[in-house]
């Protein structure tokens, strides 16, 4: 990694993530478009999504005006100088905002002041993960505010839902939370789920699932089975694209698990909108390559 080059490499990562939708998501939207009935608002909405994605890619325009809260993951050779990297990251975010790849989305909750650069206490979620490799891997997610508002967490057991502390209880909790979201998180979304952990760790795990490709297979066979079942049944809810009613309610379901405390059993849902913006950058030597 070359600190002199890192800033421009990070700006390119942000540009790609904000303006180019990953190919697996585009494919899932195309499949959904084919599935919806001709002449319905659902089909019209999916057509608008596909057209807009194309315009964004061609013109380097943000896919959504809400370029989200920014989540970064840095995997780096153990022993690197991370304080310097943090400074370079903040500078890259401010410059990407000036270039209109990002909307200024950082607001003081009390005064309402927006510094206009996406920075400030807690504005960036950055995960540092040292590893035993010589290369760097940087991943980012643009997590929209609308789909963050419909993200939720349930503590099991739940009496009304008759949901216990087992896989069946997790199934019921996810069904209920996605039903509650309706179209407000920009359906068809991706249901990213974390089972277990503390409240904060469980939700962070759910957000980690956003990075998984739609066609990957969960290495845990029980979770893989639950992902399939939920994908099938969530799409029976008929909420449809943008909540207009229709066949495509979710594009995918991704589930991870953490150890839990004996007294707790959380099911965390990080609902990700159809504009599932994510990008991965690998730095080898001083050269960066990108993959979505």
């Amino acid at each position, binding site marked *: 990694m070359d600190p002199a080059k890192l800033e421009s490499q990070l700006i390119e990562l942000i540009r790609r993530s904000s303006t180019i939708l990953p190919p697996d998501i585009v494919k899932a939207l195309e499949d959904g478009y084919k599935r919806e009935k001709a002449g319905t608002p659902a089909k019209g909405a999916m057509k608008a999504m596909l057209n807009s994605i194309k*315009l964004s890619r061609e013109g380097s325009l943000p896919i959504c005006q809400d370029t989200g809260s920014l989540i970064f993951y840095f995997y780096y050779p153990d022993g690197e100088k991370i304080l310097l990297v943090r400074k370079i990251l903040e500078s890259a975010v401010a410059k990407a905002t000036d270039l209109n790849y990002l909307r200024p989305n950082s607001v003081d909750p009390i005064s309402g002041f927006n510094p206009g650069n996406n920075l400030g206490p807690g504005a960036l979620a950055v995960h540092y993960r040292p590893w035993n490799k010589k290369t760097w891997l940087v991943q980012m997610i643009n997590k929209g505010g609308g789909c963050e508002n419909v993200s939720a967490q349930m503590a099991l057991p739940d009496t009304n839902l008759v949901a216990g502390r087992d896989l069946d209880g997790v199934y019921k909790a996810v069904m209920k939370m996605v039903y509650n979201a309706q179209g407000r998180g920009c359906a068809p979304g991706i249901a990213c789920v974390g089972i277990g952990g503390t409240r904060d760790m469980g939700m962070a795990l759910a957000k980690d699932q956003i990075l998984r490709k739609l066609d990957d297979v969960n290495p845990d066979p029980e979770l893989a089975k639950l992902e399939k079942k939920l994908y099938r049944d969530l799409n029976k809810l008929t909420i449809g694209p943008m909540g207009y009613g229709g066949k495509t309610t979710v594009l995918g379901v991704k589930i991870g698990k953490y150890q839990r405390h004996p007294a707790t059993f959380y099911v965390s849902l990080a609902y990700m909108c159809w504009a599932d913006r994510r990008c991965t950058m690998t730095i080898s030597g001083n050269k960066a390559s990108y993959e979505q």
Partner: protein
Amino acid sequence: MAITINLPTDEQTIRSLKIGDEVLLNGLIVTARDAAHKLMVTKKPKDLFPLLKGTIIYHCGPIVKQVNGKWEIVVAGPTTSMREEPYEDEVIKTYGIRGAIGKGGMGKRTLEACKTYGAVYLHTTGGAAAQIAQYMEEIVDVKYLEMGTPEAFWVIRVKDFPVIVTMDSHGNSLHETVDRESKAICEQLTKGKC
């Protein structure tokens, strides 16, 4: 066949719309989201009355840029409307707006105000921000820019901006129907109370 509506419009025109109608909007719309709604209800600034009468507001915080001193839209899709539910009935009543464009639908209070005063809720595609920007011809004015670019009132001239009526002035809401039907399916599949 889509119905064309020129803004500002009147009560009679709006009353003729029903849920499911496709509408093309022409003329001036005004963006208003969270801080704007709070301002409209708590401060009721005088300069907003002539701007809003007979028009339709857009729940949107656009990305904008300045080119040679003039503001231009970069992209501008809708934001979630439900956050304005505590304010919208008061805004409809006070300023005489004829509706709001957004995504996700709104609740009972807004639906009731649409019925009482003659207004509609118009839905557009969340996330299709580059596509929607193509229906925007120019930014005519901006007010309360000190609230930040996402929160300011942007006065935008639109041409054939396509939207769908999902809440009409006769008490009908597509969002209520979808919610009710999906709830029944959810309870059937989970055998629990959703």
